[in-house]
């Protein structure tokens, strides 16, 4: 049914792709297609908030840091933008195994925003405009364009929605509530209606942020300093990070803090019932923590600088929607924060988001052809998760314009693949955050090998420049050459070698072994091998790291690799689009309903839907085979 749309004027230029929103998802969703040669319009409520970080001034950690590395390998911007503007970086989890090492960096919020905005401004086929999207134009199930608050119809072949927490955003601070987007920006009040009108399901989620306080009111001497490390970067192609770094500081809450919270918990919207939205468990408010874990004597509070040109500090660990007066009282019980001066109060925010079950693995909506969505609107949380989806949605909008198959990363290829698979296949009941424990092939999805996993794909898409790709091929060659050397070079048990091993605290050598075998010993590092083999290739640190991991943990890696081979067999069994589950009477009703809703792409994906049993998959498998044979018979 054709609908009449109200607008004053049709914009003169017709775009290939419109991206609604210029947060972390929107920026990637804009840049990728532009780099692939398409004309992109990026519209945002406020141009001073492009790539804005409304919560932590930081990126990374285990899982999230992995995603940033993957975005880099695929040719996204997040990692490079961070390397150019960050003020601190560290590697977490260094003792827990290579797969769970996670980079974590402190961003300079203003600089991060400014540089990203500049990249978009300078990209010649991106038009960056301050506009408020109010209505989507859809005709015959296809997206046609976007009408703005000021009555302009922008026409486009594809639209990517990346509205973050703006949809019907409602900010809550104690008893006070008002309609606003993050950081009290103008909310998107009308777009939700349009999404419902075109048949999408909306839900209400909630998240929160702590107060920001002024540096001159903080007594850092009462706190534990946390410094950065030199030489680390998010991007595989950034020069080593050598700039001066800014520290974070650690302090703790105490029984006084908790008492105030207990006494005032009825004034929090969480308990008074103002909030209906579902909040994330991994990002609980301080009132939540104190009430749920009353026996915990103290909670950590990290003070993170928001940037070099501002005195604002983010009080990590103190996310809250308590009234502002109580926020003061709480802060002042904490060592070092006795005189803390709040500059921005902490708040909770509620917003509309989509049900990701309504999406395909390409991030296109199942209902409206050409309409994609990415980021927090899909039920996730976190800048990294948003950017990862934005990149994929942007790439797939572009691939669709090229009449090519979408890019679908599977669970064995990338955390981004795990993320999208889980959203689309299982859905989510709370804002979804990436954790390494969600990845069954964690050992293969390391942050150190994201380039080896994905850079070839980024290059083929045209998102990785020839220069960067050649450099990558060199690295790959170095790794192979070094591994070959390690696997072939024999070390004999001469008296000198035995003595050296003893000195290194390593066991005796009884018969000649290859270097790789020595490197497998936990106590020996690459550098230690030099003594036994003077011709040992003198390669870059990242090569040494790579060959060491691949050698030391080869047994475990091989096991996961063979599991992945099995997994791929099922992922490769594509379910024909034409399948009509209603006719499949041999499937149990529950399975039929679920399959109809999710429309899995492969038997592998189907098998991950809750309520679909192995027997259902067997039946489905036979049915598909039957259909194919019938089709063959026709020709």
């Amino acid at each position, binding site marked *: 049914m054709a609908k009449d749309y109200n607008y004053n004027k049709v914009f003169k230029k017709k775009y290939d792709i419109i991206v609604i929103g210029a947060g972390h998802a929107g920026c990637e969703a804009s840049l990728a297609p532009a780099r692939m040669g398409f004309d992109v319009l990026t519209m945002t409520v406020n141009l001073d908030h492009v790539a804005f970080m409304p919560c932590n001034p930081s990126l990374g950690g285990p899982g999230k840091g992995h995603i940033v590395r993957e975005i880099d390998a695929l040719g996204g911007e997040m990692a490079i933008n961070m390397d150019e503007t960050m003020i601190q970086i560290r590697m977490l989890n260094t003792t*827990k195994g290579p797969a*769970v090492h996670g980079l974590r960096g402190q961003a300079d919020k203003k600089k991060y925003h400014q540089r990203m905005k500049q990249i978009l401004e300078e990209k010649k086929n991106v038009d960056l405009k301050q506009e408020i999207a109010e209505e989507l134009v859809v005709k015959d199930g296809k997206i046609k364009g976007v009408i703005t608050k000021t009555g302009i119809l922008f026409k486009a072949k594809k639209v990517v929605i990346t509205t973050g927490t703006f949809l019907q955003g409602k900010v809550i601070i104690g008893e006070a509530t008002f309609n606003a987007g993050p950081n009290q920006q103008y909310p998107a009040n009308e777009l939700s209606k349009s999404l419902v009108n075109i048949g999408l399901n909306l839900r209400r989620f909630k998240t929160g942020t702590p107060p920001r306080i002024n540096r001159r009111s903080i007594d850092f001497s009462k706190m534990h300093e946390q410094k950065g490390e030199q030489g680390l970067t998010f991007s595989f192609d950034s020069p080593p990070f050598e700039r001066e770094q800014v520290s974070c500081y650690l302090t703790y809450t105490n029984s006084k803090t908790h008492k105030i919270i207990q006494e005032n918990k009825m004034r929090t919207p969480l308990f008074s019932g103002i909030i209906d939205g579902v909040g994330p468990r991994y990002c609980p408010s301080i009132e939540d923590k104190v009430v749920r874990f009353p026996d915990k004597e103290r909670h950590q509070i990290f003070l993170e600088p928001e940037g070099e040109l501002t005195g604002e500090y983010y009080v990590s660990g103190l996310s809250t929607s308590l009234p502002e007066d109580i926020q003061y009282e709480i802060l002042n019980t904490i060592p070092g924060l006795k005189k803390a001066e709040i500059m921005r109060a902490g708040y909770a925010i509620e917003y509309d988001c989509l049900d990701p079950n309504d999406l395909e693995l390409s991030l296109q909506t199942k209902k409206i052809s050409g309409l994609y969505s990415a980021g927090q609107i899909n039920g996730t949380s976190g800048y990294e998760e948003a950017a990862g989806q934005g990149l994929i949605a942007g790439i797939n909008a572009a691939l669709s314009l090229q009449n090519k198959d979408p890019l679908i990363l599977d669970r064995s290829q990338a955390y981004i693949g795990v993320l999208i698979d889980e959203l689309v296949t299982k859905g989510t009941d709370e804002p979804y955050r990436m954790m390494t424990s969600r990845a*069954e092939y964690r050992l293969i999805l390391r942050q150190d090998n994201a380039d080896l996993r994905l850079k070839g794909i980024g290059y083929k898409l045209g998102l990785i420049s020839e220069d960067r790709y050649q450099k990558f091929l060199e690295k790959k060659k170095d790794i192979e050459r070094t591994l070959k050397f390690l696997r072939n070079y024999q070390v004999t048990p001469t008296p000198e070698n035995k003595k050296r091993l003893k000195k290194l605290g390593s066991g005796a050598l009884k018969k000649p072994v290859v270097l790789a075998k020595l490197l497998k010993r936990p106590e020996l590092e690459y550098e230690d091998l030099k003594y036994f083999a003077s011709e040992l290739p003198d390669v870059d640190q990242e090569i040494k790291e790579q060959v060491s991991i691949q050698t030391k943990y080869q047994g475990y890696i091989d096991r996961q690799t063979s599991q992945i081979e099995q997994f791929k*067999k099922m992922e490769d069994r594509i379910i024909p689009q034409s399948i009509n589950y209603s006719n499949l009477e041999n499937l149990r009703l529950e399975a039929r309903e679920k399959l109809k809703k999710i429309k899995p792409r492969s038997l592998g994906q189907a098998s991950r839907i809750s309520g679909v049993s192995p*027997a259902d*998959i*067997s*039946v489905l498998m*036979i049915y598909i085979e039957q259909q194919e044979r019938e089709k063959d018979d026709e020709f």
Partner: protein
Amino acid sequence: MNNLKEDTIAAIATPFGTSGTGKVRISGPQAIDISSKVFEASSCIDLKNADSHTAHHGYIVDNKSGETLDEVLAIVMISPRSFTGENVVEFDCHGGMVPLESVLEVVLKQGARMAEPGEFSRRAFMNNKLDMAQAEAIIDIINSKTEKSLTIAVEQLKGGLSQKVNEIKEKVVTLLAHLEASIDFPEDEIKGFSFNQLKERIDSIEKPIKRLIKTAKQGKLYQEGIKTVIVGKPNVGKSSLLNYLLQENRAIVTDIPGTTRDVIEEYINLNGIPLKIIDTAGVRESENLVEQIGVKKTRDSLKKADLVLMMLDVSQGLTEEDIKVYELIKKQPTIVVVNKTDLEKQINLDRTEKKFKEHPLLYISVKEEEGLEELKNTILEEILHDNINVENDIMVTKVRHREALNNAHDSIKKVKKSFNNGVPVDFLTIDLKDVLFYLGTITGETVTDDIIDQIFSDFCLGK
């Protein structure tokens, strides 16, 4: 998603119940390799070199214990010329569930996986071995068998097995949640484990798995009967003990009086547990007993014994012959029974008790019927160990459960090995997740979300 991999599967392919012969079918790329590891052909041919569609006589041997499980006919069918279109080996075994299940079990131990309901047929269809008309029939088979196996599974889970398995799973989930929380939230205060604490946690998972495997073995004993051998020099009272036990408890008589046999087998029922008593008595009494024991057949039956009753005679004293017999059997679970306490003691009790101190020693008089109740109790204790209460204990008897438990055990052993090698904690989680997976095949899968839920209920996390 276990049943969709193109791995090698095996199952008993003939209907349940007693019949003349039964069939164990193995299908998949590894079918021939796996079969060749468990099959010893009488012609010495290796199944790997066998032509397609040939049959071979031989034995199924458990290469771990060296025990011969059954005499079978192996039929080799090479892909694509088989029912499933894959490499297939079929073992035609002697009927009855016990031999069939033990053959299946060694096949599974060599790396095959228990077939899901209808899986042979599904593979056959996918490999174009069945036509379209048969597709519907296969779907029916899958659906009905799934339903049936669910009913069976529910029945088997009665008696507390699922509770025991769930208890172990809970331990694994709790440990995993702790390790994963520390990995995913490195900046939160999560107390790590000390070396000993972690070791203890791992042991506390391994132990109950081992215990369940042990009851699995006992479950098997219940079906087969506990092989009990009575040994002792002539006139020590073997026959009278056997007769006494038979009188009281005779279940099945297989012996026909007057016929000559090397070994007599009798079944008795001891508090519900079938004892298969192998008596070397009455055979060539005049000959030297040590020589008799040296006879291969006798030695074999001793080697296979689950329990040995070594009989002495107080009126005769401890002889060289006794010591020699003892040397042959002392590694088996043994009860030393000193008979004829009604007669004058010629035996040095101190010396005897010292000599046999590793085994329970009892004084009885079959003639006066003294000490016999105690003997029965001791026999039960020896069989069941740890004073397991027969009534309440959980019996793991199904091959599928045994397979799952064995796999879970292998995985927890890998965790232990990784731990002892000092690898970072992430590597422990890999095999711990496998433990969960295998236990989940008994009671229902544990999904990643369960671990994540546990993380958030156990720890206060997040910014």
